[in-house]
């Protein structure tokens, strides 16, 4: 029995990617520069240019909104000193807090997702706790753990916990019953079913939760540092307010945007690696990301 080529759907995709590949004499590096998608840079670069123009024309006072050129000077000044310490301190807190929170969420989420009576006992309490804003816990955390690192990390871990827990829980509950049945057909015991079917099938949900948890972790690190800290990006923010230096505040904000984007992109990269098997909308259109 022969197999006709039209049965293979992947072929059409291969052709389109071949077309997009650099051809002929263009060197690899130049081609890579040429193929960079710069559409995402138009809005921020345009906004900066307009801002500079407004301040230079005297329409906006530099005390209210410092022009980008001043920001650059401040950045150069900060870059020689405290900026990297602050970034490092915040990033380390996010990393530790997120790691603790998401690991705990994966453990608890798997238990509640797989075990119906655990859901009956635990789900209502979790839903009630989830309704409490993270910041409401701050006073209590400070009483319990003081104003040191522990209270900040617990706050970050708590923020990262819920999105990861919820997504894993719903991921497990949304696994296609038909796939589980295949495992049952081979009389596979529950641990094997979990490892071979339930975990891989709920990975797409889990990754969505992890990325959302990471963004909430950045949110909480700023909140925690605004309240009490001697270093960190949140500390830069409160310093800028106390000194009436909008340029400090803006640089801290830009740092947060860049760090958030970098950490999310890294996660996206891991996600795409782990989930290349997905036949989703974004990869279905001629292999071109939507």
């Amino acid at each position, binding site marked *: *029995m*022969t*197999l006709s080529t*039209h*049965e*293979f*759907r*992947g072929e059409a*995709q291969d052709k389109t990617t071949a077309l997009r590949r650099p051809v002929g004499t263009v060197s690899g590096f130049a081609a890579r520069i040429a193929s960079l998608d710069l559409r995402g840079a138009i809005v921020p670069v345009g906004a900066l240019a307009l801002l500079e123009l407004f301040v230079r024309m005297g329409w906006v006072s530099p005390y209210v909104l410092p022009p980008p050129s001043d920001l650059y000077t401040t950045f150069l000044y900060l870059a020689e000193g405290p900026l990297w310490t602050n970034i490092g301190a915040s990033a380390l807190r996010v990393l530790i807090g997120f790691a603790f929170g998401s690991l705990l969420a994966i453990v608890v989420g798997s238990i509640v997702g797989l075990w119906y009576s655990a859901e009956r006992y635990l789900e209502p309490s979790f839903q009630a706790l989830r309704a409490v804003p993270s910041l409401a816990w701050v006073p209590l955390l400070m009483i319990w753990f003081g104003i040191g690192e522990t209270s900040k990390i617990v706050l970050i871990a708590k923020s990262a916990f819920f999105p990861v827990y919820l997504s894993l829980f719903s991921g497990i509950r949304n696994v296609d019953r*038909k*796939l589980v*049945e*295949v495992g*049952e*057909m*081979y*009389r*596979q015991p529950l641990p*094997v079913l979990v490892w*071979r*079917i339930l975990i*891989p*099938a709920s*990975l797409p949900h889990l990754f969505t939760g992890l990325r959302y948890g990471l963004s909430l972790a950045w949110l909480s690190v700023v909140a925690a540092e605004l309240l009490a800290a001697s270093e960190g990006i949140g500390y830069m923010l409160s310093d800028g307010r106390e000194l009436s230096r909008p340029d400090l505040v803006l640089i801290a904000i830009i740092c947060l945007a860049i760090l958030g984007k970098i950490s999310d992109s890294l996660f996206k990269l891991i996600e795409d690696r782990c*989930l*290349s*098997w*997905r*036949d989703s909308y974004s990869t279905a259109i001629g292999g071109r990301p939507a």
Partner: protein
Amino acid sequence: MSLLDIDVREKAFGKTIVLHDIKLSLENGQAAVLLGPSGCGKSTLLRIAAGLDKQFSGSVSVKTGHDGNAKSPPVAFVFQEPRLMPWLTVAQNIGFADGGKFDTARVNGLIADVGLTGHAATLPKALSGGMAQRVAIARALYTEPRILLLDEPFSAVDAFTRMKLQDLVLKLVEQRGISFLLVTHDIDEALYLGDRIYMMGAGDGGIQHDLSVDVARPRDRRAARLAELKSDVLTALQAAHVI
């Protein structure tokens, strides 16, 4: 000797009785077909035979000489949809019963048998419906079963692919001496594949009629005897108020 004996006294979903007093047995080397309209309980009967549905009163006994074990159950199932694990390659899906340490030689043999040579590392998303169903058939054969249960396995593919897949299944099953029980609502398919056809009525009508297909293999789809039998089947279905 019968390989599989199914005796369902009653099977109900809630208050609706789907199957009622049904006895069916599959002889060694036999190709049996359950033919009936949607909702007559034929798929449910097959799921009971496979041990996927245990909420019924009655019994199912499998006598294949060797009892089989978790690694190689004596009964394999081909579902209506391919039901491939989307995160596994074609080869990993075929060897699914053994997980990560599947028998590579056996998997490669099956890949060649179902005509998918060169696609061992392909992911299911790049397969057409017909190819995916070939993988599902290979996965069922991987455990070297004695009995193959097929639940409308060709209903989701086009007519031409369906004919190719029917011939493929017949060839593979004959090579291996496997008996099979196939569920379908396609009369031509039932006549082409089956030695014996059990016709089920609508509702919980049970098995209304059965018929032996006295046509030697390999069969020709154009054979006059098949056309005669088709009119018998249609008459029986009409008598059972299915059509």
